[in-house]
């Protein structure tokens, strides 16, 4: 293959030669390849599910300079898949936790840590200091930001994305290859696609996809094999099937096409239709706090005018914990709305309040007048009313 990433090889010390001996004795890497790895500078966006295996293996393989951008803190729900962090790291900055593990695996790696959110203001300056960018954040605003910044700075973008037990991987924004916008010119409107926090993810999946990203990164540095340029790899972990689709560079692509309309970085939150923390659909619906609900339930115990609790989560979530609500998953609400009595006072809840906000908005449109959203969802109930209730 032609050289995608040109670096000036760096000589190895005797300690490094011993450490990388299993690379050095294979012709596809050899001394030349290992020196290329040492000279390479890779920027990982995020030290989460995809970023964990990606950074761990790149460090172990001897990538000389590894940059990590992250501003998050480790929490218990991360540990099921973010293997760079340990139980003892909960509450620590992901950047500190990751740096400790990476130094432990390979003290020869030059780590560059950026405790910041990647933004339109800092992305270009940051990317220019590296040879390859690997995006492990897996959300739409950052994905379009990384893509556009890679196209504008001429850096390859090693892409991975996961959902439940399915993943995608590709290499975007090489000189003649397609970019993410050639594949998807526009993001979906918010609310139409659930995230891992709503949809869940099989813990091994970011491992699989993150390692595909690591493999592609190393191949780009070595100039070996066939990189995933112009190909979209689809990974189905349940069926254990790998399928491949052809990607073409779109001549009308708004960022990498012949007459680009995106020539500088834009506001990606706005581009993806996200403003503030609240989802637009749920904003402005009437709310009730968990304390108010508890008080109402205590008062109305045994009376006919008691509040009707509507739980719009999925049945498997109901099994984890519930407050005896009537279960109608949000997706089934339109066809099961006749089961509800619009003359009663209804409090809708979900896990954190986003889905039930949509449910309240939907019920209001359907003519329900006495319906409220439980603020903070069942998580708030567990925090403030029933500390014995498990959280998820």
């Amino acid at each position, binding site marked *: 293959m032609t050289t995608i990433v040109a670096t000036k090889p760096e000589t190895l010390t005797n300690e490094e030669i011993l450490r990388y001996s299993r690379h050095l004795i294979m012709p596809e890497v050899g001394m030349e390849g290992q020196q290329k790895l040492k000279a390479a500078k890779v920027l990982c966006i995020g030290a989460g*599910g995809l970023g964990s295996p990606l950074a761990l293996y790149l460090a172990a393989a001897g990538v000389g300079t590894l940059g990590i951008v992250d501003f998050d803190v480790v929490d218990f729900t991360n540990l099921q898949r973010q293997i760079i962090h340990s139980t003892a790291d909960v509450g620590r900055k992901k950047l500190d936790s990751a740096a400790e593990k990476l130094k432990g695996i390979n003290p020869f790696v030059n780590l560059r840590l950026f405790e910041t959110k990647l933004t339109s203001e800092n992305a270009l300056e940051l990317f220019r200091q590296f040879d390859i960018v690997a995006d492990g954040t*897996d959300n739409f605003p950052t*994905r379009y930001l990384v893509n556009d910044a890679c196209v504008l700075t001429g850096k390859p973008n090693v892409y991975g994305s996961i959902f*439940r037990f399915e993943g995608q991987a590709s290499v975007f924004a090489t000189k003649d290859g397609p970019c993410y916008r050639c594949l998807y010119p526009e993001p*979906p409107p918010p609310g139409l696609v659930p*995230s891992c926090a709503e949809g869940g993810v099989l813990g091994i999946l970011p491992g699989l996809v993150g390692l595909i990203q690591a493999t592609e990164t190393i191949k780009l540095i070595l100039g070996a094999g066939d990189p995933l340029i112009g190909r979209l790899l689809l990974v189905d972990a349940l069926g254990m099937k790998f*399928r491949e689709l*052809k990607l073409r560079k779109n001549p009308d692509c708004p960022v990498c096409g012949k007459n680009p309309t995106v020539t500088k970085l834009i506001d990606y939150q706005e581009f993806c239709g*996200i403003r503030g923390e609240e989802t637009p659909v749920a904003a402005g619906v009437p709310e009730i706090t968990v304390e108010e609900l508890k008080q109402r339930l205590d008062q109305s115990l045994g009376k006919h005018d008691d509040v009707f609790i509507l739980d719009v989560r999925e049945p498997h979530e109901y099994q984890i914990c519930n407050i005896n609500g009537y279960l109608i998953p949000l997706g089934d609400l339109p066809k099961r709305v006749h089961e509800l009595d619009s003359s009663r006072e209804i409090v809708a809840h979900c896990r954190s309040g986003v889905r039930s906000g949509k449910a309240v908005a939907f019920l209001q449109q359907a003519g329900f007048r006495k319906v409220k959203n439980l603020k903070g969802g069942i998580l708030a109930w567990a925090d403030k009313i029933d500390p014995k209730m498990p959280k998820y």
Partner: protein
Amino acid sequence: MKIHIPTPLRQYAAKQAAVEVPAATVAEALNGLVELHPDLRRHLYTDEGRLRAFVNVYLNDEDIRYLQKEATTVKDGDSISIVPSIAGGKDPS
């Protein structure tokens, strides 16, 4: 012919991973699909009846945008893949 349904859309297609429909073109196949599973319609099409920008359709391994789009003819043994953009991570807030 077979239409592969991606994970995020399976909840609107009776949880099936693939659906068989008789069809001579991509448009007929997709029509057959949304007739079988009407809940899929708003996820695949805009109110004006156009395929949504974040839903790509492939005939075997080729993007139909680079064939004859929805008019592309299909034959027995072909398969259609619906590939929407996915994002597992939470939005930064």
